[in-house]
């Protein structure tokens, strides 16, 4: 089973990227199953179903989405095998920039959009820095110069990634991404495999439902900000 993780900030066009590319993979004879991870709700499963793709949804709810992902990804592989697929695409939304769902050895794709600003590649953490392929969307509405600067900043943040320009509306770039996806490594199981980047060690009362603000409630792993000037 080819395993491919697709991650990126909200609303960059991850689903459009997967949909357009899956069409190319299907045409090449691959049997693609998609698992959509999200935090609270998603309508993307309907979009996948409309495109004739087999899809399953995982909602993290009140659990950290990254923890939810890692606790379920091997079950996703089992699901995909049971459904007769040979390629599993795990699309994760709702992750914070601190983490990444990327797994050692499995093709890791990060989707970012040019509209988010030319400095964004620097702000996204391991999700982009540890990806094998960085897909850049929405280039059709910004200038060529901004596209080039953005792509340059992506390469600076992650020099070893392949950069793919993608138009989620026309599907421009899908052929190229499909070429990379078709070469993704296969796994019998993900049991014993490792994430490329460790999860945060922060466990504090707010992780488990605390809502009150104030010193008394800040226990466990707490870090305080340093302020500019005399504002402290």
């Amino acid at each position, binding site marked *: 089973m080819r395993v491919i993780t697709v991650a990126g900030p909200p609303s960059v066009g991850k689903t459009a990227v997967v949909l357009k590319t899956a069409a190319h993979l299907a045409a090449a004879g691959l049997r693609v199953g998609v698992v959509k991870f999200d935090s609270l709700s998603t309508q993307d499963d309907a979009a996948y179903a409309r495109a004739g793709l087999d899809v399953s949804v995982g909602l993290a709810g009140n659990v950290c989405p990254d923890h939810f992902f890692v606790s379920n990804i091997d079950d996703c592989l089992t699901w995909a095998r049971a459904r007769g697929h040979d390629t599993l695409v795990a699309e994760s939304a709702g992750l914070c920039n601190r983490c990444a769902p990327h797994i050692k050895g499995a093709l890791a794709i990060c989707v970012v959009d*040019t*509209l988010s*600003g*030319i400095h964004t590649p620097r702000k996204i953490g391991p999700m982009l820095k540890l990806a094998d392929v960085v897909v850049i969307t929405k280039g*059709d*509405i*910004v*200038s*060529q*110069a*901004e596209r*080039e*600067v953005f*792509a*340059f900043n992506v390469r600076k943040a992650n020099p070893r990634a*392949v*950069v*793919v*320009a993608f138009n989620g509306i*026309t599907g*421009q*770039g899908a*052929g*190229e991404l499909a*070429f*990379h996806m078709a070469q993704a490594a296969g796994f019998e199981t993900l049991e014993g495999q490792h994430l490329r980047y460790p999860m945060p060690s922060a466990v504090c009362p707010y992780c488990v439902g605390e809502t009150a603000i104030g010193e008394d409630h800040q226990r466990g792993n707490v870090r305080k900000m340093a302020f500019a000037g005399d504002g402290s």
Partner: protein
Amino acid sequence: MTPEDTATLAAAKLASLTILGGRDKGGALETLDLTLRPGDVVCVVGPTGSGKSRLLADIECLAQADTPSGRRILVDGAPPDARRRWATVGKLVAQLSQNMNFVVDLPVAEFVAMHADCRMVADGDRVVADVIACANALAGERFHADVSLTQLSGGQTRALMIADTALLSASPVVLIDEIENAGIDRKRALDLLVSQDKITLVSTHDPILALLGHRRIVVANGSVADVIETSAEETESRAHLERIDAVLMALRQHVRGGGRIEALPAAFSTFASAMATDEPFPWTR
């Protein structure tokens, strides 16, 4: 040097791009073997939905009979292998369209300098000054290096995009989707791209812009129906059309300034009545 760098260098030194025919929307063979070389300006014309965008997209992804058109694109006379194809794509073609805007909120000079940095240009300050001077030569109204990108007018934005693409983009091929006929000197814009040895393709419905190309590709029903060399007669026609156009542009300025249009040059009424007859237009005969 990484394979990507090698591909960039190779792309920058592109000697020719050849488009080989595929099939039209009905599956009929497309007869096409067209080679484009640096300095060529080729316009792409055809009704909406005829396949102009498909043709440009085929070039952009260096199609190898794997797009709906079935076309193949040769680089320097040979098909690129898969690795090189995907390493080259994205660096081969720069794109400009009317839908594109500057979204970064920086002064013009600062942003162009940032772009120059990416290209690791040796003499950055000079190149930035050149880009801004070129853009100002193309734009109707001048702008200052310190103005914010997001405050440029439509014409100034397009002029800066073209000047920056010509002088700072590594891509040897430039795809342009229409250049609006306001606030920019289109002939000069194309001349600038030619002077930088770009292969320029312009998708357009505008007769003057179409005649500014050395050749034009006519697209119909998903395939190239004809490739027309711009003749001496057509270039002469363009000169006439440009004069009519200049009058309309002057009128436009006049309306903008709050003027009335109660009196037109006498030649206009003669022209208008000549055009109002039931006679077919000369080009339909």
